[in-house]
């Protein structure tokens, strides 16, 4: 078991190093000069050079990379060109939006999808099954930014229950902040819930077909207690896997929905940083996201290994 963990961690670290090189290399070939961008059309070339010098952009690339990567090792993510503050500070501010948003939408989708999936599985082949899985199909097919627009016009413009977008900050109070996150969380939760409901249902159907469940039924346990006590527990692994993947996705995959609601989240930070050529921010945030994905994958792998010792060897 220890060698397995060790091996996985080692792979994770290798991936991180490779990823840092890939990200750095990619950003070097992005056209556009951050210094010229900051100074605009009326500045002279000499002025641009002065600023480039100040920003450390005139150093050799290898030095720039080692400088940045070395900083990462010391948990120093560098300084944003455009905002001229520490990247860690920026990321901290953005995570205060992205993390709760991810958790809320994950919570919402879990709350709806798992019961729905179980219910559909228990009604397999009946109308209720068809209706709920049909709904899940539609949920998967609807572009979330389109759904977001619909939500805005109904709940913000028409009913005026929540703000149409933006984020007041947690300093404005927990309730106003939560209110600002409800619609984006809903928009993000819809496709996630649809997928989760389908996975839950098929996992349940699979488990319900197993021998030991039939045995339990034969031994006289009620359908309900079989469902909850045996089947659900065993169907949990694939469901948790999907949840882990969705969480990792939600941390940065929300750019489009963040744009619709103009939320100051991590996704939009990267989006803006790319268009403003704030390379340090892009590099560091991408690395953080890569690290998050690797960590989540590691945890999922470990949980597999714990459940099924056969998997410890390979994979």
């Amino acid at each position: 078991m220890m060698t397995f963990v060790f091996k996985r961690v080692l792979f994770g670290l290798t991936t991180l190093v490779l990823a840092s090189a890939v990200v750095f290399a990619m950003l070097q070939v992005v056209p556009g000069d951050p210094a010229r961008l900051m100074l605009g059309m009326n500045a002279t070339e000499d002025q641009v050079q002065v600023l480039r010098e100040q920003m450390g952009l005139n150093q050799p690339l290898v030095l720039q990379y080692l400088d940045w990567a070395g900083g990462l090792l010391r948990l120093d993510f560098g300084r944003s060109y455009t905002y001229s503050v520490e990247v860690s500070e920026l990321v901290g501010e953005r995570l205060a939006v992205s993390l709760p948003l991810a958790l809320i939408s994950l919570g919402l989708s879990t709350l709806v999808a798992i019961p729905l999936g179980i219910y559909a599985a228990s009604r397999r082949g009946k109308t209720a099954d068809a209706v709920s899985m049909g709904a899940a199909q539609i949920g998967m097919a609807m572009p979330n930014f389109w759904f977001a627009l619909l939500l805005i016009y109904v709940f913000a413009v028409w009913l005026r229950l929540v703000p149409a977008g933006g984020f007041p900050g947690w300093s404005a109070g927990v309730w106003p902040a939560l209110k600002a996150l409800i619609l984006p969380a809903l928009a993000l939760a819809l496709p996630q819930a649809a997928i989760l409901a389908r996975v839950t249902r098929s996992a349940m159907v699979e488990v319900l077909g197993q021998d030991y469940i039939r045995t339990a039924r034969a031994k006289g346990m009620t359908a309900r207690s079989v469902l909850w006590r045996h089947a659900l527990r065993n169907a949990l692994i694939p469901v948790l896997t999907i949840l882990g993947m969705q969480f990792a996705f939600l941390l940065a995959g929300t750019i489009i929905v963040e744009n619709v609601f103009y939320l100051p989240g991590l996704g939009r930070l990267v989006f803006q940083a790319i268009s403003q050529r704030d390379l340090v921010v892009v590099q560091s945030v991408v690395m953080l996201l890569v690290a998050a994905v690797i960590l989540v994958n590691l945890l999922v792998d470990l949980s597999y290994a714990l459940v099924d010792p056969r998997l410890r060897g390979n994979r």
Partner: protein
Amino acid sequence: MKTIGRLTAVGLLAVAISGPAWAARTDLVLAMPLEPPHLDPTASAAAAIDEVFYANVFEGLTRIGERGEVLPGLAESWTISDDGKIYTFKLHSGVKYHDGTDFDASDVKFSLDRARGEKSVNAQKALFSAIDTVEVVDPLTVKVMLKQPQGSFLYNMAWGDAVIVAPESADTNKEKPIGTGPFKFQNWAKGSSITLVKADGYWGSPIFLNKAEVRFIPDAAAAIPALLSGDVQALPNFPLGDALPQVQADPRFKVVIGSTEGETVLATNNKRPPFDNLKVRQAIAHALDRKAIIDGATGGLGTPIGSHFAPHNPAYVDLTGTYPYDPAKAREVLKEAGHPNGFKATLKLPPVGYARLGGEIIASQLREVGIDLQIIPVEWPVWLKTVFTDKDYDLSIVAHTEPNDIDIYGRKDYYFQYDNPAFDKVIADLNLTSDETKRTELYKQAQKILAEDAVNGFLFELPKIGIWDAKIEGLWQNSPIQANDLTKVKWVE
């Protein structure tokens, strides 16, 4: 279907109107499309910084008024020597920075020297190029010596890039701006908003608002719901275009269309064939239907221009008829130019609504006369690099928003690559002329030369589209400079 749309809109309005009434409010939430990269107006070209802080938090020796006039700022008066080379400014007394330190003449010297110094990263360094030395006479008097007379000096000192900052806070203004204005900076929630609050003991006339929050909403699609839902009460300068009809009929809001200094042109690479041929440029001019372009790109609100000059300027001449819209004529001229079957070219478009929309329309119009344009959308960094700096482009669309900037056509390395000694002569004369009538005459000549040479496709003056709560007064109608002056803004019942 249209009626259904209308009915829905009316229904939504009815619900919206029943919202709470705002009586004698002293707070305001306004929205802007772009967020400042940092908060120091003396160290960036970003207009967004000035749009938050100009006149509100930072002040200069002089300032620009709503109609573009130069007004006294921190300098209550000034005298100019007879040779036009020495400006002596008398400063207001009792002015304090928001951190409690006193403002005096040494701050003026510090700010001007910093802006024109070797290490300066001021984006408009050219504004200070005429300054020879700055001298502190006494704490309330400062003398500026120029290398040569400069007619626009007082105007230059009114730019947002020329505001006066204190040596104690100059280096930290990017994060925590300290100025002398009636509002002080309170908080910047990055990616979201900037909050300003009333400053205590302001030296000038008192303001009405206690708190102003500027929210950053990237596009009209998000701004309209924010306005309709009441989250935001003013969009002072927002490229709304097509979205305007949604709010125009709504009595809760005031729609105010004003002017800007943004001449929007189909920028043309005058040195690159076939655009080095006057006939080709004339043909393009004949092929452009300004009305359709204005309707499609600005929701019909732009003012057509025939040269590079703002229509509200007294020296403006209407030259839109120089090469009137006439596709048949365009084809004919193109044939004379030696392109009977037209040609292919590229059109590089920066990421702004008027350019992207206008570009599609122009591509369609030029295709009618045989010119096949390939649209290449680019981001600003790429535009600045390839089009503006490297001059690697055929055509582009951009609004030149600097006021009174016809002289850019005389710059040899400018990206239009235009070179006409007759025009240069006019600009040189202008720099030596101070008589207003003569200046007006010269400006008119300059406009005519550009129009006849069809240097660029002259399209329209960018409109300033403002929408705000009908109970708000004091926001600017026009945009003579990049600013949202909140010093006169108040709620009325």
